[in-house]
């Protein structure tokens, strides 16, 4: 019986921290991955909003007027919006590449699958907007 050495030494090729700035594709890849951080930040902001909502009218109104409407938070939310759009666009595009849809024995071309994802995004957005804006 062959015993495995107690600790395998792995060789790791040295890699510059800023490798993702070396070319455009790498940078876009990193922006896409970083979008998840902004989704996380938005959820945290929303949890705070829910906490205020549960604490009553005065607390909630203070949060909207004092926090959500302050210029610095608006700027943060603009950044959040840009990154969640990056997430939605890249995710829906990749859905076309990853998700195989078969009709009979034929494969639906990836651009149609991506198109379906983008259409779903549009419909979902319209439904949420209608629910939130309805009188």
């Amino acid at each position, binding site marked *: 019986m*062959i015993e495995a050495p107690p600790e395998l030494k792995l060789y790791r090729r040295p890699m510059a921290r800023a490798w993702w700035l070396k070319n455009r594709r790498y940078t876009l890849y990193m922006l896409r991955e970083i979008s998840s951080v902004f989704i996380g930040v938005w959820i945290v902001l929303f949890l705070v909003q829910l906490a205020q909502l549960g604490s009553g009218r005065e607390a909630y109104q203070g949060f909207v007027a004092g926090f959500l409407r302050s210029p610095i938070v608006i700027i943060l939310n603009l950044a959040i919006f840009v990154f969640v759009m990056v997430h939605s666009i890249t995710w829906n595009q990749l859905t076309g590449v990853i998700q195989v849809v078969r009709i009979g024995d034929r494969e639906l071309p990836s651009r149609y699958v991506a198109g379906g994802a983008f259409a779903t995004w549009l419909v979902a957005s319209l439904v949420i907007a209608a629910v939130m804006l309805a009188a």
Partner: protein
Amino acid sequence: MQHHVEESAKGGHNELFWYGLFAAGGVLTAFVVPIHVLINNLAAPLGLVPVETIGYERMARLVAHPLVKVYLFALIALGLFHWAHRFRYVLIDLGVMGARELIAVLAYGSAIAGTVIGAILLLRVT
């Protein structure tokens, strides 16, 4: 050797579980988060739509609805697990190699904590 193989197989199984949550969160957030940010965090606070859109009465009434609670819970939970999984790999991409296990525990742990907090906060609005 057998031990190593078993361990990596176990890791693979866990990895699939976290990947599933990551992917589900990726799909749901891709479809719904931009419109939430646009209305809730930009248009209403800026007054581009009436600020009452996110006013106390409306929001309390909306969140009090059981279906809205279920929807928001799914969004919070899956969104957080999406973040946790992707962020873990961002750190590895950026060369943080040392504390892989600790990072995984912290990332998924935060997502679990956020999910529990989300459930409590949603149930508090009646």
